[in-house]
């Protein structure tokens, strides 16, 4: 099954570039002072831009594999690589602006680069060992991003919680992966898929259950979502934004690949399971979000609900032709709108301290621009046209109906109706309440640029989804 060559370094040029930069920046970040603290971020920004260019130029558009069939080089991987690199690009800018004149300004970009490398690898891995390795790289970098401000008690608690939950979940997942290896004698997903086609379903269910737990943790599926609100709340807003996007997207890509390539013959089993988990996740996320006061907790539960919507598409991945494209498109939309939302929280946090909610009151009077950015992001998350979230939700609902899961689409639509409430409450606070402060918030050019990028992307994806949908329609490598 070693269809690819075994030493294809060209296939990992973006990863090598970013990992090289990250390693080179480790000593730099430890010693820079004053003005020079901006250096790692600048290098990371250039590096990420270069890696996006490299991803487009170097990687072929045909489907193949590299490194003895352990690493997919296909449109699916390229799509997620670009998405992750873009998310990291925006996040570095925001982190840099957020931590300006603090020690963390130099540290954050390095950790972010490591996490990005992990995300890129995860989206392409076809090999059980690589999956676990990259999942760990993403997660470990994530633990550290949460605890960037080491003196902050809530950040310590959040990081520890993230670490313990993550360690346990990934250990169980590793056990599941080893069971799969034991069952099949194979480490590559397509090989496993072929061997498992006529294996004992009981063992498949057990092994898959363990493996799924790891993914469920990473993409915050119920009932393994508990960590997210605490962790997002404890972390700084830009770090929370990054964690809510990059590890999640990468793990979704990996889960999709795992199901499509590793278990294609067992869709009858996992499809209804995914659908059920999707409904539970979106319902729990939405209901819990209704009661949140803290903005980061609210966005955490919101992003749990969003994960439920995405999983709806994964549930019908093999039952509807457009499902994979819908999942890809939705994750791209989610990336843009969620980054925009967390970005505004970061701006508020920097201006007003840890709890951004009071600063929200009357924001439309105080800083109409930031209120508009937040409103667009929230309306998009709620699925209101003409924003990206709307187009994405239409695609997902279509896929669910097309996959003959009408009940799933109805449950999701009900959830979207309920979910509007907590987004609208935030918008109401910004627009319908008088402001306590009148001084406009000064955020700097970096934040403004990142906001413009994500907001315009959110609008463009909603008004003209055609081009992005074309990109999202990704063939993936199959033997």
């Amino acid at each position: 099954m070693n269809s690819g060559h075994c030493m294809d370094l060209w296939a990992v040029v973006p990863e090598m570039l970013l990992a090289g930069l990250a390693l080179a920046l480790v000593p730099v970040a430890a010693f820079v002072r004053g003005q020079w603290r901006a250096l790692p971020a600048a290098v990371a920004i250039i590096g990420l831009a270069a890696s996006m260019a490299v991803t487009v130029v170097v990687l072929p558009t045909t489907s193949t594999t590299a490194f003895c069939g352990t690493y997919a080089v296909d449109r699916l991987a390229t799509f997620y690589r670009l998405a992750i690199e873009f998310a990291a690009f925006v996040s570095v800018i925001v982190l840099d602006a957020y931590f300006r004149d603090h020690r963390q300004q130099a540290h954050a970009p390095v950790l972010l680069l490591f996490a990005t490398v992990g995300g890129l690898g995860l989206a392409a891995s076809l090999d059980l060992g690589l999956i676990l390795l990259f999942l760990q790289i993403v997660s470990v970098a994530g633990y550290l991003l949460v605890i960037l401000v080491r003196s902050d008690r809530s950040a310590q608690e959040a990081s520890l919680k993230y670490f313990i939950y993550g360690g346990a979940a990934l250990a169980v997942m590793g056990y599941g992966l080893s069971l799969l290896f034991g069952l099949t004698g194979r480490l590559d997903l397509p090989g496993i898929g072929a061997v498992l086609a006529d294996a004992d379903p009981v063992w498949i269910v057990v092994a898959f259950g363990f493996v799924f737990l790891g993914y469920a943790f990473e993409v915050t599926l119920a009932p393994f979502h508990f960590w997210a609100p605490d962790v997002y709340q404890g972390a700084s807003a830009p770090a929370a934004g990054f964690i809510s996007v990059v590890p999640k997207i990468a793990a979704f890509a990996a889960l999709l690949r795992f199901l499509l390539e590793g278990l294609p013959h067992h869709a009858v089993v996992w499809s209804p399971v995914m659908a059920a988990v999707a409904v539970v996740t979106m319902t729990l996320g939405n209901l819990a979000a209704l009661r949140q006061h803290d903005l980061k907790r609210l966005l955490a539960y919101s992003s749990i609900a969003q994960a439920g919507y995405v999983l709806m598409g994964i549930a019908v991945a093999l039952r509807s032709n457009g499902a994979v494209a819908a999942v890809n498109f939705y994750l791209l939309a989610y990336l843009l709108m969620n980054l925009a939302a967390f970005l505004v929280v970061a701006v508020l946090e920097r201006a007003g301290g840890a709890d951004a909610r009071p600063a929200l009151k009357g924001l439309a009077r105080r800083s109409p621009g930031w209120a508009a950015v937040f409103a667009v992001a929230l309306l998009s998350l709620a699925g209101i046209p003409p924003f990206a979230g709307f187009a994405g939700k239409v695609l997902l609902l279509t896929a669910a109906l097309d996959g003959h899961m009408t009940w799933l689409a109805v449950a999701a639509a009900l959830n979207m109706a309920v979910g509007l409430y907590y987004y609208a409450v935030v918008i109401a606070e910004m627009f319908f309440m008088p402001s306590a402060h009148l001084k406009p918030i000064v955020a700097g050019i970096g934040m403004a640029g990142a906001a413009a990028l994500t907001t315009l992307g959110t609008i463009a994806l909603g008004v003209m989804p055609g081009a992005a949908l074309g990109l999202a329609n990704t063939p993936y490598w199959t033997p």
Partner: protein
Amino acid sequence: MLTFTIFLPLLTGLIVLAIPPSRPAWARWTALAGAILTLLLALWLWAGFDASDPALQWRASAPWIPGIGAGYDVAVDGISLPLILLTAVLLVAVMAYVLPQHERSPRLHAFLFLLLATGLMGVFAARDLLLFYLFFEIALVPMYFIVGIWGGERRRYAAMKFFLYTRAGSLAMLLGFLGLYLSMTPHTFSLPAIIQAQPLAAAPTAAALVFFALLLGFGVKLPTVPLHNWLPDAHVEAPTEGSVVLAGLQLKMGAYGLVAILLPALPQAAARFGWLLAVLALISLLYGSLAALAQNDMKRLVAYTSVNHMAYVMLAVAIAALSANAGARALALNGAVVQMVSHGLLTGGMFLMVGMLQHRAGTREMQRFGGVLAQLPVYGALFGLLAFGSLGLPGLSGFIAEFQVIGGSLTLGVWVAAIVVLGLLITTGLYLRLVGSVLLGSPPEGMPGLAPLGAHETWTAGTLAALSVLIGILPNTVMPFIAAGSSRLLALFQA
């Protein structure tokens, strides 16, 4: 041309946002100019419309999301053109009415109304279901902000209720659209293609599911009992100009959807559940008039009469689906479309009148007023005219509408017509009570002196009343268009 008409308000809105905040008067005048230009364009569309040609006219299409079979496709027929014209008229009226209001972010205010107008005209012109949905939501979201920012005391509650209700309705509608979309091979959102293919004619279960999803979506917007709960709050808490647009135009989205999408796309299901439509319509008709009768707050009263008036549209759809008589079907649909236009003019005008009174006296309680006709003769005359139009007095547009629907309803059974007439009697009673209490008699203790009307107030309300008289006396100004539209619609799905 049609595309330009639809997007001109949005374009104007963006220009208004670019005006410096220190110049509120500029913002107001720019918005009014954009509205007038939109009206002129709509009149141009009207002039170029050939009522004898049954095809869709002013059609413009372009690929939008080719990957999923959704296109930008707009066109008008005899049903949508009057509604686009109505939108432009009310937009001008609203922008003229708010001309002197310079406080509280006039730029955002104007932008939201203009955005809303683009959404509304898009809804009436869209020939693609996804595009329809897009415009539908674009027409709804600004109203959330309008109620929430410029509304009355309980505005946050009303705005939230409005948003959640309509969102739930539109999500149901979206699922219905997706059902229609998936039933087509190859999948397409094109409404003419769906009407022609009748994809769910042989699938009664799926047709029923889609029917109820659409009924929920349009029923919330219409609104019909029992989905009307959001209406009194939103109408009462909205600022005057918001109520005008809400009642005058937004309810028409639901009405238009029933007539132009639900009926032709699912005629079998509509016939199967026509009895349900008729029963809901009759209940709404009686409920709306009885609830209005119980109100002392004039704004609330006018709000509830909308439930009554819009029920005629649903009844007409039921008649068009159930009646064996082709003449009755056409008659009822004609009546429904005239009712949409007439209600837009009359109820829009009534909200303006109530708003003027509230602006002067600070209250909307009916008992606090009396003898207004003697004090403000112009105001009194307009108020009376609009009220009589609303109760269906011959010579005004409401009569033309309701008369035709009642005529059509006779073919369903005399008792149906009898209930409608009963509702009409109650409505007559409540409007007479309103007119008698506010305009006639002697002023009660403590009624403040009322300032005379400003030119912008006289002109806006006067224009709406005059248009209603025009339709009432010379129905042939609109009837050929509407008749062509409804016969086209009936021919489409009965062929």
